């Protein structure tokens, strides 16, 4: 029994090593005093200093964050309403439509990217617009939506059908039912979908590459363009910063959650005590 236990421990440790070793290497080399990615030659904060004065990296970071935040928020709203719509559909309609919804998730990025780009370019020629932030945003929203729907649907299936009827019996309008009953119940699903969509957006290279045009460039595109000359350690620095921000946010979220959880437990205890 104990033998099995240590085996499990080693396995867990290895999993974490493989997951985090690359990130640790990246963080360490963001402080390296030369451009080398293999030889340690001394500590410096220069890359961080240069990072903030590099307008190209800074503006692509801004584009990436802006497009990811806006696209994931819009996708969360559209996706949630779409999911509610799917949920209330007749079964023989819902199946095929949900399958269609899954296609963009399974489809290769390159096909989504090329087809969106063809659409935008030809529509742009007709209506007189160019590829730019707008088309980039639309592309991101469109590939984000399926992820939101996929994470909201299970929450809807868990929902008690009687809740609607109860709320309407108590005088809610249809909109109030959605707003006051359904949305709060499926909130964890929406937030999951939002976070997945955000990650997908930050991550995306292929679709952005085909739809961004000449006025904007995302961080992943900027990094890719460096490959002839060698990827600058400034990229290590910015990745380290992004990683640190995400880590801090996760810690904040977790602390808040556990506090809320404790508060709820306390409340329950008090209620029980009162009974």
């Amino acid at each position, binding site marked *: 029994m104990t033998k099995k236990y240590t085996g499990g421990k080693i396995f867990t440790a290895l999993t974490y090593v493989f997951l985090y070793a690359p990130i640790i290497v990246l963080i360490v080399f963001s402080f390296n005093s*030369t*451009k*080398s*990615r*293999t*030889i340690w*030659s001394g500590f410096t904060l220069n890359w961080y200093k240069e990072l903030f*004065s*590099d*307008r*190209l990296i*800074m*503006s692509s*970071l*801004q584009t990436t*964050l*802006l497009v*990811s*935040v806006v696209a994931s*928020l819009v996708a969360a709203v559209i996706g949630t309403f779409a999911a509610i719509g799917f949920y209330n559909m007749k079964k023989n309609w819902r199946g095929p439509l949900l399958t269609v919804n899954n296609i963009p998730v399974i489809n290769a990025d390159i096909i989504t990217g090329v087809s969106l*780009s063809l659409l*935008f*370019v030809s529509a*742009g*020629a007709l209506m007189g617009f*160019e*590829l730019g932030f707008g*088309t980039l945003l639309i592309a991101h929203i469109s590939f984000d939506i399926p992820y939101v729907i996929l994470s909201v649907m299970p929450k809807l299936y868990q929902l008690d059908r009687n809740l609607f009827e109860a709320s309407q019996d108590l005088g809610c309008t249809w909109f109030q039912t959605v707003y006051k009953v359904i949305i709060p119940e499926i*909130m*964890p699903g929406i*937030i999951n979908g*939002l976070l997945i969509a955000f990650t997908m957006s930050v991550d995306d290279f292929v679709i952005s590459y*085909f739809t961004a*045009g*000449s*006025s904007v*460039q995302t961080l992943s*595109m*900027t990094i*890719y*363009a*460096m*490959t*002839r*000359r*060698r*990827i*600058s350690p400034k990229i290590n620095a910015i990745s380290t910063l992004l990683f640190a*921000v995400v880590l801090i*946010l996760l810690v*904040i*979220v977790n602390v*808040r*959650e556990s506090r*809320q959880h404790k508060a709820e437990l306390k409340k329950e205890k008090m209620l029980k005590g009162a009974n």
Partner: protein
Amino acid sequence: MKKSIIVIISAVLLLGLFSGCGGSTASKGVVNVYNWGEYIDTDLLTQFEDETGISVNYKTFESNEQMYSVLKQGGVSYDVVIPSDYMISRMIDEDMLQPLDFANIPNYSLIDGGLKNAAYDPDNVYSVPYMWSTVGLIYDPTVVGEVDSWGALFDSKNSGNILMFDNSRDAMGIALKYLGYSLNTTDKSELEKAYELLKQQKGILQGYVMDQIFDKLESGEAAIGPYYAGDFLTMHENNPNLKFCIPTEGSNVFVDAMCILKNAQNKENAEAFINFMTATKNSAANSEFIGYTSPNKEVKDLLDLDELTESVMYPDQALLSKCESFINLPQETLDYYDELWIKLKS
């Protein structure tokens, strides 16, 4: 949970705002520039904006072919592009560039005469050189000994220590040069022989690489490989054992030059940009940052170069005269390149 999400979103948005403080919209319009990644001292962009009031929308690409496909795909509007020689001749052939008004680019007179009337733009109509450099062998003499020929790349005594370009034109070019043919040959039997040579080499090769060559040569994981002269200098900083040579068979000399696209909407701003980048002081700063050679003939004296840097940046004329630049090949030959390359890599 809800509140924490709001915290996250506002933090991310704030970060976005914070990072955007560099952008300024000036009144005298914009110039849209499309250049290689990591191929400019970005301080120059800010200086250009301060001097002229024209704001620069600066974007980057990874290869000539990638840049070409983005432009062909449409829906984009760049003014200045900075492709390499053979791509420029292709773009001229396809009527993608417009003639420059040299009255607006007085600094053109500072360009080294040797770089004018080049094969890709024989009448100096469409382009102003941005930077040039050569392809050479970078090697560690403690492992492979002294080297002055491409032959070292095909020598089985260096087996396992050899790196090779991971793109068809550069790799085939080296094989062709070693065999004594032109880089720009369209003769199928010559290309076939170059392919056979590369196929034999594959057995003793450590790998086909592009920018991974930096780390592999610096760390000593590999000991010899061809790359761009300008990039040797940064490798040498990390591994002083490394040496550079242009093989006696001759090599590839390449020029990246600034051109204005046919559909450019800000032609005058584009010419102002080209003129600015060509000025001695600016071109010197840029050359120092990139490590490639400035086409401006006054730069060499302005930069205080050590002996090694000077020998790499300004190679011996006799060697240089044996080097060729790429020109655009006919489609049939390009297709044959693709065919051979796929056969080689698979």
